């Protein structure tokens, strides 16, 4: 058991052990000195030579010497340097970060309990100078305990932590760990990852740069890649039957890791009632679509779910992904008003037919010939198309302008008659000129598309739509003044603008320099026409597809009207804006207050299921529902190789070695840590004081006995 000393210089004090001996042998009792003529005879007496060097009180001398030795040793701050005893001292004070995966895949079997045990085990053996952080992560990461020297705080946090419904993402957690480790000044750094190591959470582009010398340990919990059955995406196809909206759900059932075929039952629930049940035979690994019969969508915020009956599933089945929830409301189609010029027949046929295509919320298209309807009628629409028709003058023009400023969209297809007077140029982009024929060759083409704009963003990338094949034989000349107010989204190959946008108030105006039929261009005959028109109308309306469901972990800003409208929760934002508060109930029953006002209020959708939002104290009102599903990426339970994870992390700068960085400083801190942990000096001091106390008692006892036995005094010393 090797013994080390933190301040060995104090061991010089051990020389003090001989002080009592030297004093004993050489001390000159000057107060009792007898001056004698000569010591000639005294020195010849054999006894005196012996007695002079004789130690009479061995016990007293031993006490004094031992006390001095203990004092010297205590000040030298001893410690036992045996590694077996030193235990988990390692490189000395260590910054430890424990990453605990709490994604919903950890609920499989005994994974969670194993993970907690592993995390608790990682908190063992902490020294006074060690610090530990507990980072809980799923698709996000949060430090439950950050850089504390009190390991009990970590253990307490582990007692209360629970699994979430979110998926696994290693990036945020590793980044947070990287930050903690980099901010630490301790020489030792350790990262312990406790997870089921789902491959789906690892992108390989985490970009983690662990500090030099970080020791990485990965703890894989649970059975690797158990069999799993999950409900994948649920597609909701809408159609109308006699003005009644119907929804046809088609669910995708996936199976991984199993053997042989498996028959399962899939249930469709609407508003909490089982509506349909299907029996599906799943292959060993693969996906099977399950189509349910259409159901009538009569109520707003109708809650639906596709579930897998758990009977027959293995014990290690992941249950969280066995259901998909959705919310659907009727009447979510985007209203489009086509203001056709009178006397032109069905000029907007191509446009109308293109907008009618689609299975989503779609467009509700109305065609009007004649004047501009009133403001109330306009308010029922999101987009107004002016096809080959001049911009109205007077009150009609003002209504359209007010419609746009209120958030509506106006799309002008110039055609031969389109245009506007100069007094409208303050909100209409540029000035339209005359008709230009492009009969040279095979007509003009679109030479530039702004793929960064939402209208054309869909067509970015290969095989995402080919506008180059469209021919433009005629178009209006168009002067667009440079400036920030007008954005040219497309140009012909001669550089003249083909499509431009100008924002006005909350809405926007888009001008198309050609037509949206087959007279001036064959674009309407191209495959990209339908999606182009959809994108044009959708962008002009300012609306996006209403989401049927959210993913656990997403956060809603309930005061953001546009975002809430997109989420199908526009009425909530309106209510909050009009000083009507709301209460949200989570799937687990937790109440979340959503007070009125314009200040941002966030609703974190942490649990899968249905969040209900209703006015406080009103149970008679059908609540607004928000469906939340787990991230399906978590359903892929194929794990990573722990060594692969460690290798990837170590390649970022960490090492599995110990003592990197400043080795000398690390060793010094290690010694200090051992010494402080063992604190042997305290015991040595106590022992020294005990010995000194014993020495005092013993010495007094000897002294008293000496006084009692003292004889006559010595003769006087010499004179002059």
């Amino acid at each position: 058991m090797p013994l080390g000393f933190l301040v060995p210089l104090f061991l010089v004090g051990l020389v003090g052990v001989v002080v009592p001996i030297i004093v004993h042998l050489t001390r000159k009792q000057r107060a009792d000195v007898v001056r004698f003529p000569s010591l000639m005879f005294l020195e010849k007496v054999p006894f005196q030579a012996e007695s002079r060097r004789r130690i009479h009180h061995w016990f007293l001398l031993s006490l004094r010497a031992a006390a001095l030795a203990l004092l010297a040793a205590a000040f030298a701050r001893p410690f036992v340097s045996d590694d077996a005893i030193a235990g988990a001292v390692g490189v000395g004070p260590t910054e430890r970060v424990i990453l605990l995966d709490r994604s919903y895949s950890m609920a499989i079997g005994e994974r969670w309990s194993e993970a907690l045990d592993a995390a608790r085990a990682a908190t063992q053996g902490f020294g006074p100078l060690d610090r530990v952080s507990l980072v809980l992560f799923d698709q996000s990461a949060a430090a439950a305990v950050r850089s504390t020297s009190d390991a009990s705080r970590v253990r307490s946090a582990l007692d209360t932590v629970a699994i979430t419904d979110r998926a696994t993402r290693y990036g945020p957690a590793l980044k947070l760990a990287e930050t903690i480790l980099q901010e630490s000044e301790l020489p030792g750094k350790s990262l312990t990852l406790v997870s089921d190591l789902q491959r789906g959470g690892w992108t390989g582009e985490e970009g983690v740069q662990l500090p030099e010398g970080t020791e990485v340990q990965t703890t894989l919990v649970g059975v690797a890649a158990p069999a799993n059955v999950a409900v994948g995406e649920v597609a909701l196809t809408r159609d109308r039957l006699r003005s009644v909206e119907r929804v046809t759900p088609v669910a995708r059932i996936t199976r991984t890791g199993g053997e042989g075929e498996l028959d399962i039952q899939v249930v469709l629930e609407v508003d909490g009632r089982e509506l349909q049940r299907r029996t599906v035979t799943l292959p060993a690994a693969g996906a099977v679509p399950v189509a349910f019969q259409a159901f009538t969508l009569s109520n707003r915020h109708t809650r639906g779910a596709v579930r897998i009956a758990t009977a027959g599933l293995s014990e290690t089945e992941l249950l969280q992904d066995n259901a998909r929830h959705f919310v659907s409301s009727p009447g979510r189609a985007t209203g489009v008003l086509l203001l056709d010029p009178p006397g032109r027949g069905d000029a907007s046929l191509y446009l109308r037919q293109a907008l009618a295509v689609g299975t989503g919320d779609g467009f509700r298209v109305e065609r009007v010939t004649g004047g501009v309807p009133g403001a109330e009628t306009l308010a029922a629409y999101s987009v107004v198309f002016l096809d080959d028709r001049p911009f109205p003058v007077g009150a009609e023009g003002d209504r359209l302008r007010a419609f746009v400023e209120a958030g509506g969209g106006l799309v002008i297809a110039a055609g031969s008659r389109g245009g506007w007077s100069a007094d409208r140029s303050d909100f209409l982009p540029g000035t339209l000129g005359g008709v230009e024929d492009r009969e040279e060759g095979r007509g003009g083409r679109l030479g530039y598309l702004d793929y960064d704009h939402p209208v054309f963003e869909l067509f970015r990338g290969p095989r995402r739509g080919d506008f180059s094949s469209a021919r433009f034989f005629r178009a209006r000349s168009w002067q667009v003044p440079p400036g920030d107010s007008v954005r040219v989204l497309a140009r012909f190959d001669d550089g003249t603008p083909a499509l431009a946008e100008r924002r006005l108030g909350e809405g926007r105006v888009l001008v198309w320099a050609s037509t949206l039929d087959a007279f001036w261009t064959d674009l309407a005959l191209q495959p990209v026409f339908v999606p182009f028109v959809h994108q044009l109308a959708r962008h002009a309306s300012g609306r996006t597809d209403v989401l049927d469901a959210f993913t656990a972990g997403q956060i809603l800003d309930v005061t953001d009207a546009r975002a809430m409208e997109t989420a199908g929760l526009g009425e909530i934002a309106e209510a909050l804006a009009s000083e009507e508060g709301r209460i949200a109930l989570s799937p687990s029953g937790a109440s979340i207050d959503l007070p009125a006002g314009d200040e941002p209020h966030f609703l974190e959708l942490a649990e899968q299921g249905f969040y209900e939002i209703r006015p406080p104290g009103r149970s008679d009102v059908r609540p607004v529902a928000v469906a939340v599903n787990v991230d399906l990426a978590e359903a892929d339970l194929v794990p990573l190789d722990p060594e692969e994870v460690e290798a990837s992390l170590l390649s970022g700068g960490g090492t599995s070695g110990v003592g990197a960085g400043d080795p000398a400083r690390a060793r010094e801190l290690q010694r200090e840590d051992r010494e402080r942990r063992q604190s042997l000096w305290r015991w040595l001091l106590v022992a020294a004081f005990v010995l000194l106390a014993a020495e005092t008692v013993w010495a007094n006892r000897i002294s008293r006995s000496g006084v009692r036995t003292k004889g006559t005094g010595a003769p006087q010393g010499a004179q002059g």
Partner: protein
Amino acid sequence: MSPARAQFLDPKVLARIDNLELLARTVVAGFLNGLHRAPHLGLSMDFAEHRAYVPGDDTRHLDWRLFARTDRHYVKQYEAETNANVMALIDVSASMSYGSDPEGLTKLDYARFLTACLLHFSRGQRDRVGLATFDDDLRDYVPPSARNLDLALHVLDRARAERRGDLYPALLKAAERVGRRGIVVVVSDFYEEVDRAMEALRLLRGRGHDLLVFRVMDPVELEFPFADPTHFEDLETGEQMPVLPKKLKAGYDRLVSEHVAELEERCTSERMDHVLLDTSKPLDLALFRYLTIRERKARVR
């Protein structure tokens, strides 16, 4: 010895007399009166003439042969010898400064008084007196002379015991300077090995001097009455040593006795007179021994 005379010879009383000459005269006169001897009783005298007897004359000096022829009483008168040298060598080493009794005499004081008395007495005998002090060297030297008594007493009075002592080199120098044969009195405590002390004394004896050795010791040195463990410091060397007297006394007494006995025996064997003096005892013993020795020597002569 009467109580009054004894009082004057008591060392504690003598210690209170500052004048060394007065002290010597007092001591010698008192001593001689007690002996009822003639003041000029000398042993080294030649016949000078006869004179008629008067009462009070010492009957030992009657010339009985002349009485037989003349039937009258005549006493012989002698002419005192005046050319005898008496040289006192006084040890003034630091060990002579020891005195166990604060009210008593140190060994040097005792030696000083003794020497003063001897010189005074000798001068009364018409001797030439001289004095030398020594420690490890010859310090003061007063050559023998009929007129040097005062100087000798003065030197004796201011003698101080301060240095280490070494008999041989000191007595070697003294032997070289004392030319004419005479009586040499050595007063010392003789803290020397006997062999080396005898070598030193032999230096004087070998030159034909009559050697009288007075060894002065304090009663504590002789009795060693210490009881408690303590430290002893050598007055000459300053060396200290812890001593357990109870354990040491027997060995010390034995060593001192052996040393004294051996020195005395060696002195006697080499025809030196050795007298051990205790500083707590009166001086008359020393003086008596001195006179006895002088008388014996005269008789032998």
